[in-house]
């Protein structure tokens, strides 16, 4: 039996609208990366509209695609920001 981790997912701005949810959770294999999570979100019946280079924050810091996730992480999908 493989070790699994669970992460909390957040969808902001237009992503929240397109995903029809602002929050969710995902189960992943241990040692999964940000890229693995995004791929699983894009999977069959999923968020196939997510752009190629989606910006992600892990625990409220901008993160690279290769960043390894840990159980309990908060992962936010960040559409193009438009403050100011």
């Amino acid at each position, binding site marked *: 039996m493989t070790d699994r981790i669970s992460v909390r997912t957040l969808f*902001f701005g237009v992503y929240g609208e397109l995903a029809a949810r602002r929050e969710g959770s995902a189960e992943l294999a241990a040692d999964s990366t940000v890229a693995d999570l995004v791929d699983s979100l894009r999977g069959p019946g999923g968020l196939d509209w997510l752009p190629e280079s989606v910006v992600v924050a892990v625990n409220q810091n901008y993160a690279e695609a290769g960043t390894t996730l840990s159980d309990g992480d908060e992962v936010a999908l960040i559409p193009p*920001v438009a403050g100011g």
Partner: protein
Amino acid sequence: MPQGSADRVRTWITRESLDDFAQFEDIVGEVGSVEDGALLFFQGRVRRTNRGRAVSRLEYEAYGEMAERELSAICHEALEQFDVGSVAAAHRVGDLALGEVSVAIAVTSAHRDDGYRASRWIIETIKVRLPIWKHEHYENGESHWVGAPTPEAGASTGGSRFG
């Protein structure tokens, strides 16, 4: 006499109005000093016309805690990069009417050149880093998330790997 960096920066994300100059005047009075010969105060306001469309109102959504942290980080970086005395910056979230202030930045500095440059750098950096999204509502009833790809464009690039 020497002030720590923390004493010279004030930042916040708020649902309350930022229209009033007085709150920034008060902060500058607290964090500025008589070594500052210049004050630069910038306000961004909800404009009626954006890219040729008539805006009726705006809605700002923020990744609250991260936005607080990023705004503070940006202003502390400004204090390191420019010769400025103090920085105060705030950003609105929630519903804004036409003419309301969405972002305000006050910078004091010994010399004006540093103040102009730091103020400009802060607003430009806010626009690329602060996790805040703008939902524009138009007079014709339509709305749009500013900067978002259209659904068609999104679908055409979806499903592939990170670039």
